[in-house]
């Protein structure tokens, strides 16, 4: 027998007390695991949505522009930074030679005013290759169809813009913009479809999609001139690809002052700040749960100390040091924590995996952020964090009451016990 056997026996003999603490450890583990997976999935989904609809995994643009300029939904009217035809050709050559890339597309992105009669609506127009699949994953159609690759005069409108302007699929709508030479142009487009960007509508993100040729007409760009090229990298290879591209561009005389290469994580500042509000609320809830768990542990150990004053006195009398008695208490908390942490982990993982298969159907307003069906994803990297938080809280909160309980004077406790 070692002294932890005493801890183990105490845990199982006082099983009701162990259960009451264990229940909270189980709940904290389960909820922490569930919420961290929830947050991680939400973050990944939103990142995916913004990647599909706006930024790609990597964006190449003119040097000197900031990440904020390229993601901002309120760009500066008529002040366009763009890549020249030769630069775009160089980038395309490099991209075609790279193996870590899934696909890429050239884009023209500018600000424009939608106009129908006397009704106007400021918007961000994204001109792209209509055959690109990513924007179709992001833009959920409610009516009509996606852009026809054979037509250059079509637009996809967010449904709320279409409603505000009073246009339907098949109607024409004007776009008024300032060209790169700061001349005002008005171009008529046909509404091919209406819908909204998956998960991003609640963040007031309402892009208007059109073809590259449509955007050229609005910006005055010549063939081959682009505001940016976005790249969809192989999974987990964004950073590597970004570094490779920046290095390869430098060898072609295009350093970061000429062409800036940014990954989604580098660009996603505003997205993360929005998500952080949701994350904050969830972590505040977990924090309250952990504080309750800590109070329970403190209370439990003080109770154990009171109940076992005579036992502690006996152990001190036969030569056990205060530290050894503290170790016995900590041993009990460690055993209870381990048992219920493992149970919480198993049930949590099982439920998350089940829900990831089934999906959680959501209604308004949650679907605006989480999508119509939320497929929570389990992330193994969360387990280590949950482990550290639960064990850290359990052991830290049990330390003080254990020391306090073990610090009784043996003569006093023995006098009480006699």
């Amino acid at each position, binding site marked *: *027998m070692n002294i932890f056997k005493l801890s183990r026996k105490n845990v199982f003999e006082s099983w009701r007390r162990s259960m009451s603490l264990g229940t909270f450890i189980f709940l904290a583990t389960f909820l922490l695991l569930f919420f961290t997976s929830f947050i991680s999935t939400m973050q990944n989904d939103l990142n995916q949505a913004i990647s599909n609809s706006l930024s790609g995994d990597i964006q190449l643009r003119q040097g000197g522009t900031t990440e904020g300029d390229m993601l901002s939904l309120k760009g500066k009217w008529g002040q366009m930074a763009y890549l020249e035809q030769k630069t775009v050709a160089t980038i395309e050559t490099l991209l075609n030679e790279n193996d870590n890339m899934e696909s890429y597309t050239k884009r023209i992105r500018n600000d424009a005013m939608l106009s129908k009669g006397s009704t106007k609506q400021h918007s961000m127009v994204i001109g792209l290759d209509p055959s690109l699949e990513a924007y179709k994953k992001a833009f959920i159609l409610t009516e009509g169809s996606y852009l026809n690759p054979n037509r250059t005069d079509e637009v996809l409108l967010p449904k709320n813009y279409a409603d505000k302007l009073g246009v339907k699929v098949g109607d024409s709508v004007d776009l008024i913009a300032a060209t790169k030479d700061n001349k005002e142009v008005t171009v008529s487009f046909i509404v091919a479809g209406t819908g909204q960007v998956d998960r991003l509508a609640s963040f007031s993100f309402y892009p208007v999609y059109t073809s590259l040729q449509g955007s050229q007409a609005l910006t005055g760009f010549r063939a081959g001139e682009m505001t940016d090229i976005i790249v969809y990298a192989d999974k987990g290879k964004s950073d590597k690809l970004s570094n490779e591209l920046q290095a390869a561009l430098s060898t072609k005389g295009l350093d970061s002052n000429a062409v800036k290469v940014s990954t989604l994580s580098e660009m996603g500042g505003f997205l993360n700040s929005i998500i952080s509000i949701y994350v904050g609320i969830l972590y505040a809830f977990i924090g309250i749960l952990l504080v309750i768990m800590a109070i329970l542990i403190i209370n439990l150990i003080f109770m154990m100390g009171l109940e076992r004053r005579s036992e502690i*006195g*006996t*152990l001190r009398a*036969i*030569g056990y040091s205060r530290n050894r008695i503290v170790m016995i208490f900590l041993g009990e908390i460690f055993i209870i924590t381990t048992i219920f942490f493992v149970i919480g982990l198993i049930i949590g993982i099982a439920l998350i995996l089940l829900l990831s298969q089934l999906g959680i159907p959501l209604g308004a307003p949650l679907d605006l952020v989480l999508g119509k069906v939320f497929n929570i994803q389990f992330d193994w990297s969360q387990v280590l964090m949950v482990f550290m938080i639960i064990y850290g809280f359990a052991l830290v909160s049990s330390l003080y009451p254990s020391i306090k309980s073990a610090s009784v004077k043996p003569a006093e406790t023995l006098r009480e016990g*006699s």
Partner: protein
Amino acid sequence: MSTVILQEVSKSYELGRTSVPALRGIDLEIQEGEFVTMAGASGSGKSTLLNLIGCLDVPTTGEVWIGDTLVSDLDDKQLNETRLRQIGFIFQSFNLIPVLNVYENVELPLLIMKEVSKKERKKRIDYFLNAVGLSSFADRKPSELSGGQRQRVAVARALVTKPRIVLADEPTANLDSKTGIEIIELMQQINKREKTTFIFSTHDPKVMQRANRIFHLVDGKIEKVENIR
């Protein structure tokens, strides 16, 4: 050779602003291998005296010597070591750990004696369980034993570390008189066989007559020392 020496020992407890004297100017000397008792009525200071000898408490004034060690010179770690290696305790309420069985209760002090191997541990436990007549009860929990059996376990636990001194605070108080006498006889046998010094407290005249010397305590003072044989 003196095992325990107390010189001018006084002990007071503070109760609010009042100081309550428990022991007043105790002088005593106990030789190695003696079988002595502290006799006196409840509140006479017997337990306080045993606590001081057992390094569980410190005197307000005076000196307590265990062998050639002055107890007040010891730090907390040394006090633990002294209690572990030099002193064995037997309590009135047995003070066994309820969740452990007989074998494990006896094993408890040996677990923290690093120099005692697992094999030696088992040998010692078996020997002392046999000595107290509880070899066949090793797997029982304290709740499954009679009062006398529980006190025998406490005796085995006190002896298993081979201490110089065994302190027993009213070891028969919670036992019927027949069982009480059996426990004292068991302690006497071990005293003779192992040459361990036994110091026990009692207010039972039948029990105190079993000692070699009786220190009669009245109101915290040694009123009389009686040599029996």
